[in-house]
């Protein structure tokens, strides 16, 4: 696929213009999208609404799930044994995402730290954490998180206590991972909302741990 050299009477600019020349895949995406619209299968507004919905999903959903698990040990067990059902019970449908991905929660505990990466692309529990940060998609993170996770953690300012094993989860296929960090000491009197505020996106990827 190279230049766009056929004639017709509409223009091809997407409302969001890229700064660089489109890649082959962008030409392909443009062509397929325009065909789907021309044939009346989808409308531009449906595409826009889907993008808006994706962008609106935020790590707050994941944080709510973790805070509930911290506050309620039986919910923690539920989350660890069947994360999709636990999310569903909190009113978070994972099916909003069209991909048939399954969700697995991995819990940090003393001596056991989890870190999530997708070496092949950018697989990420979007339904709970929203759109992944740019660094998560970078080649540097993707290649180094599996090969030298402890150095990567240190660069994020995370130095684990002596004797802590690091468990990396490479989401290379159909499962998506969310890290359930350890509840910080001194939070016994916190409400679930206060707990949720401690659970940032990065703590659920595992590059850092919650702090008070």
């Amino acid at each position, binding site marked *: 696929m190279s230049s766009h050299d056929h004639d017709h009477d509409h223009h091809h600019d997407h409302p969001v213009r890229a700064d660089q020349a489109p890649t082959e895949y962008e030409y392909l995406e443009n062509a397929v999208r325009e065909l789907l619209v021309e044939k009346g299968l989808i409308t531009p507004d449906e595409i826009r609404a889907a993008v808006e919905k994706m962008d609106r999903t935020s790590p707050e959903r994941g944080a709510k799930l973790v805070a509930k698990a911290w506050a309620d040990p039986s919910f923690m067990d539920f989350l660890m044994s069947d994360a999709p059902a636990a999310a569903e019970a909190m009113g978070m449908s994972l099916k909003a995402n069209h991909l048939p991905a399954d969700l697995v929660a991995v819990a940090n505990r003393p001596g056991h730290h989890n870190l999530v990466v997708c070496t*092949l692309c950018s697989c990420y529990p979007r339904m709970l954490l929203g759109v992944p940060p740019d660094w998560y998609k970078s080649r540097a993170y993707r290649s180094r998180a599996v090969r*030298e996770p402890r150095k990567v953690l240190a660069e994020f300012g995370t130095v684990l206590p002596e004797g802590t094993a690091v468990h990396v989860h490479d989401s290379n296929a159909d499962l998506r991972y969310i890290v359930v960090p350890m509840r910080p000491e001194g939070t016994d009197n916190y409400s679930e909302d206060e707990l949720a505020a401690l659970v940032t996106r990065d703590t659920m990827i595992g590059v850092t741990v919650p702090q008070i």
Partner: protein
Amino acid sequence: MRFQVGDRVKTLSVNPPGHVRTPYYARGKPGVIERFAGHFQNPEELAYGRYYGGTLELFRVRFRQVDLWPDYDGAQDDTLDLEIPEHWLVPDHSAQR
């Protein structure tokens, strides 16, 4: 099911062309079945629009980092989990690890 949780397995050491989701770093490596992850279509076929090939058993396999990287700089009990479809796995009958 082709494997049970706890089974020792080895990934194939092959380099087929196409869209392959078993990373190079985990080819020809020993690991242990951590869980059966379900039946999924083969991404190597899906990538080319072939949706009708049936499903494969997908396993989450746990590797020791020291088995993946000869120069691994970290603890002996550091691990890495990957999802590997059944056709990439064979039983590992080599010595106990």
